[in-house]
């Protein structure tokens, strides 16, 4: 186990051992989960094995989160440069990229050649969609970095779920507008995930295209150009997905459609839970306050954080978006989720359960204390929420609704 150390004039000899160091290799297993189903089917002949990956994700995943619990360990700030320069951590993010391709192509071959029952076809395809939805998580970690290699790897891995616009929209749009009514990728109190998806998916595409259009206009380059960083990733998607149709025929069409939609759904699910109801104050100059740690929901659960490159330490990510995953910190008294993302996804898919758990947590946050003026509320649900929890003035809520 590697120990980092430094001598400082103030704190003396400072050391840090990342006890999760070896465990970060679990992130490599995440894209491979659908292959467990293929291996089981291949070895036993039972198509039931093709449903096992979904069980691993949504039953085993929350179970392991519960079993292994939380981790609040932080690296000392003075050793963060050493930790960030350790090539091991970034190598894992690089290796995840070809693994997403491997799983995607292996599943395409399997559904294209094995004559599966309809339910096994759907089960395996949905599992591949979820696994490749986490390609967006890899693209997220890589896309925030400044090196050309990493931004290109982000574009390459985002091509698998056909979501190449994500890193533009996320870095320059979502991070700018997060936890405001202006952000299609921040969920509002009272908004179900199914309603949110219809706002988030087209909203993300529109914002990415607009941002890239503005950037290219400043450069004097046509928007339909190879310099368009949205199109760069889409070109890889077209080559990959049209290639699969050419190789395996029209059965690839339902496969690709279901795979892509579920991969997008994974991102929608993450976006939905990461900022639900949280709201930045508007300043007198009309701009929003800078994003603070209490503008994101967090989970410190070990298992899901290892699979997701610490995505769930979301407050530190939003405060310091270029910080590498191994350096992201836990802070006390932040908005926290009762379980990791895998479990919360399942909760989000049952809106009544989500509202029951999360509305209470939202209202109880120390910076909100039941004050509806400090919550990002779905305008369509405003009256119902006011009637149920009403402690906000109508004027304040009208002002909030007017800039939606």
């Amino acid at each position, binding site marked *: 186990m590697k120990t980092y150390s430094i001598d400082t004039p103030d704190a003396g000899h400072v050391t840090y051992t990342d006890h999760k160091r070896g465990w970060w290799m679990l992130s490599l297993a995440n894209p491979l989960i659908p292959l467990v189903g293929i291996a089981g089917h291949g070895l036993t002949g039972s198509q039931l094995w093709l449903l096992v990956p979904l069980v691993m994700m949504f039953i085993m995943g929350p179970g392991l989160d519960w079993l292994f619990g939380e981790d609040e360990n932080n690296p000392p700030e003075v050793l963060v440069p050493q930790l960030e320069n350790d090539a091991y951590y970034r190598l894992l993010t690089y290796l995840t990229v070809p693994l997403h391709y491997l799983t995607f192509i292996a599943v395409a071959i399997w559904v294209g050649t094995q004559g599966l029952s309809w339910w096994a076809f759907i089960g395996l395809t949905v599992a591949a969609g979820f696994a490749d939805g986490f390609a967006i998580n890899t693209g997220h970690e890589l896309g925030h970095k400044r090196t050309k290699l990493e931004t290109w790897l982000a574009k390459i891995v985002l091509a698998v779920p056909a979501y190449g616009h994500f890193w533009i929209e996320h870095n*320059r*749009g979502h991070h*700018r507008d997060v936890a405001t009514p202006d952000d299609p990728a921040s969920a509002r109190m009272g908004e179900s995930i199914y309603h949110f998806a219809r706002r988030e998916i087209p909203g993300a595409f529109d914002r990415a295209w607009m941002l890239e259009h503005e950037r290219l206009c400043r450069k004097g380059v046509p928007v339909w150009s190879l310099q368009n960083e949205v199109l760069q990733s889409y070109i890889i998607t077209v080559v990959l997905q049209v290639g699969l149709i050419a190789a395996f025929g029209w059965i690839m069409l339902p496969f690709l459609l279901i795979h892509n939609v579920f991969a997008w759904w994974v991102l929608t699910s993450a976006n939905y839970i990461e900022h639900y109801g949280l709201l930045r104050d508007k300043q007198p100059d009309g*701009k929003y306050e*800078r994003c603070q740690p209490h503008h994101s929901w967090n989970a410190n659960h070990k298992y899901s954080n290892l699979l997701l490159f610490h995505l769930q330490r979301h407050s530190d990510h*939003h*405060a310091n*978006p*270029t910080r590498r995953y191994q350096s992201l910190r836990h802070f006390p008294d932040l908005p926290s989720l009762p379980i990791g993302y895998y479990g919360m996804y399942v909760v989000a898919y049952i809106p009544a359960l989500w509202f029951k758990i999360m509305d209470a947590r939202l209202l109880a946050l120390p910076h909100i204390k039941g004050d509806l003026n400090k919550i990002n509320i779905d305008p369509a649900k405003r009256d119902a929420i006011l009637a149920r929890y009403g402690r906000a003035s109508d004027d304040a809520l009208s002002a909030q609704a007017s800039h939606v």
Partner: protein
Amino acid sequence: MSELLQQYQCPGCGYCYGEAEGDDHEGYPPGFAFAELPDDFVCPDCAVRYKEDFLVVGSG
């Protein structure tokens, strides 16, 4: 003229906007003044900090 060109740094992530070099990726040519950046300019790397948060860190 070059002595008038300044470098501005994002206090959050360390991104630097040097007026001498501009930012080719973002579409700001060499010599493009920081003051001329749009009012809603946010840090191109972190998008957390606004234009008025940037600090002068040197010239050139």
